[in-house]
């Protein structure tokens, strides 16, 4: 009986030992896989890396279309979709925040802080937009300066346009008075491109990225874009490719009418290469 018991205990302890080592391995494996995810998250934090963000051509470039209203609507949507691109958004936001915040932006940001500190004032519960600026541009600038997420910017624009508090097309095309979005983009883009030295250097970096126009597969129709007042090549590139540095692609495709990247004039029909 004792022998039998000893035998059973021996068998059990071996089993237990095996089980424990097995579980231990499993545990490690789980931690390892968990941290892979985290490493991936970390690699997502790359405001400077503009490679590989581009999606297939935005449907919005139908801006070349006929009727004025749908054209503006498409343009508006394409701009909204730009802001949805995280990397570009980050970059622009960085430029925007460096120009200093507006009071309304600071109010919202401060309220965010207060919420985090568990001391949100009751007044802050109201939608910060209600008291905010009335033009689309001001909305964008405010949201950017607040450092809001792209989803937030998107939502806020849609909401504002949806309930008629701002009218998108006018705000976008009017170059009189306030900064319009195009010039806003232009100035931000200039700022963000400026420290990167000469355009040649930019070309060099860009050429490292795959799928540049030389590969030009059979394209059914050539996408074109009519330059609007206040447009810059970088702004157009941002609109179509999601990155300002892609202006070089458009520039190269339109060398016949563009002696230099700065020679863009309203009314020009630019070829937008399909990448």
């Amino acid at each position: 009986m004792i022998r039998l018991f000893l035998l059973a205990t021996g068998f059990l302890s071996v089993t237990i030992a095996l089980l424990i080592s097995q579980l231990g391995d499993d545990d490690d494996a789980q931690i390892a896989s968990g941290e892979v995810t985290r490493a991936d998250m970390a690699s997502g934090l790359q405001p400077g890396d503009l490679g590989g963000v581009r999606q297939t051509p935005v449907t919005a470039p139908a801006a070349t279309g006929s009727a004025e209203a749908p054209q503006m609507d498409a343009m508006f949507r394409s701009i909204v979709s730009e802001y949805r691109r995280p990397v570009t958004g980050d970059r622009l936001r960085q430029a925007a925040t460096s120009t200093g915040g507006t009071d309304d932006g600071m109010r919202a940001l401060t309220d965010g802080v207060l919420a985090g500190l568990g001391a949100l004032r009751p007044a802050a519960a109201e939608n910060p937009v209600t008291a905010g600026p009335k033009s689309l541009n001001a909305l964008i600038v405010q949201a950017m300066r607040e450092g809001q997420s792209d989803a937030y910017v998107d939502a806020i624009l849609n909401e504002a346009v949806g309930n008629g508090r701002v009218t998108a097309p006018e705000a976008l095309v009017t170059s009189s008075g306030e900064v319009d979005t195009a010039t806003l983009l232009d100035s931000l883009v200039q700022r963000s491109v400026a420290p990167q030295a000469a355009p040649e250097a930019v070309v060099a970096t860009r050429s490292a990225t795959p799928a540049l126009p030389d590969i030009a597969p059979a394209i059914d129709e050539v996408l074109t874009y009519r330059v609007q007042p206040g447009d810059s090549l970088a702004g157009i590139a941002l609109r179509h490719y999601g990155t300002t540095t892609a202006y070089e692609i458009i520039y190269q495709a339109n060398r016949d009418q563009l002696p230099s990247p700065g020679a863009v004039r309203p009314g020009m029909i630019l070829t937008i290469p399909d990448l």
Partner: protein
Amino acid sequence: MLRIAGALAVGSIVTGQSLTAQDVRITPDLARQSLTVNGQPLVIERIQDPEHRLTGDFTKTSRACPPFCITPMQSAPGVTTVGEIEVLDFLDTRVAAGLGLLLDSRVPEWFAKGSIPGAVNVPFTTLDAANPYRDDILQALGAVKTAEEWDFSGAQDLLLFCNGPWCDQAPRAIRSLVSAGYPVEKLSFYRGGMQLWLQLGLTVAMHP
């Protein structure tokens, strides 16, 4: 008899698992830091894979300066600069006790993508004198305004950090606080920031 042995076996498995060795410890005496902040349980430990390496943004060596310049060890006269162990200790003795706050000075996007567990996001711009609503934040930090004078005697102890030795946002926030009258002995600066926190494989909290 068998039943007893079975119970024994189950018992040993459970104990065995909970005793699974933590090979990458924080200190010889500390495998992990467990604490409760605002009713939320937090566990801070290190990645256990000895082969793990950082990828992505925090492996960069040569960010443009300006703006990403190397910051001095001292952020402002009288403000203590601390390391990871002191951050854990601050979380344990000050934050968990409701006497202090760990402040992430970066912009909300960065905070969302990963911060030190238990940290609160207070972007450096909101502490700048240019923010007309800064008083609200100072009040939330426990300062009391009495006839043009701020009384900071009941204010929280603050430990600030940002992206690391190449990030000036926490030092700027500290200088803003000091110029607002925040007592320097209530402030400290974790210069290593996210760069060193991640380098050491310490737990990161996401705020999506």
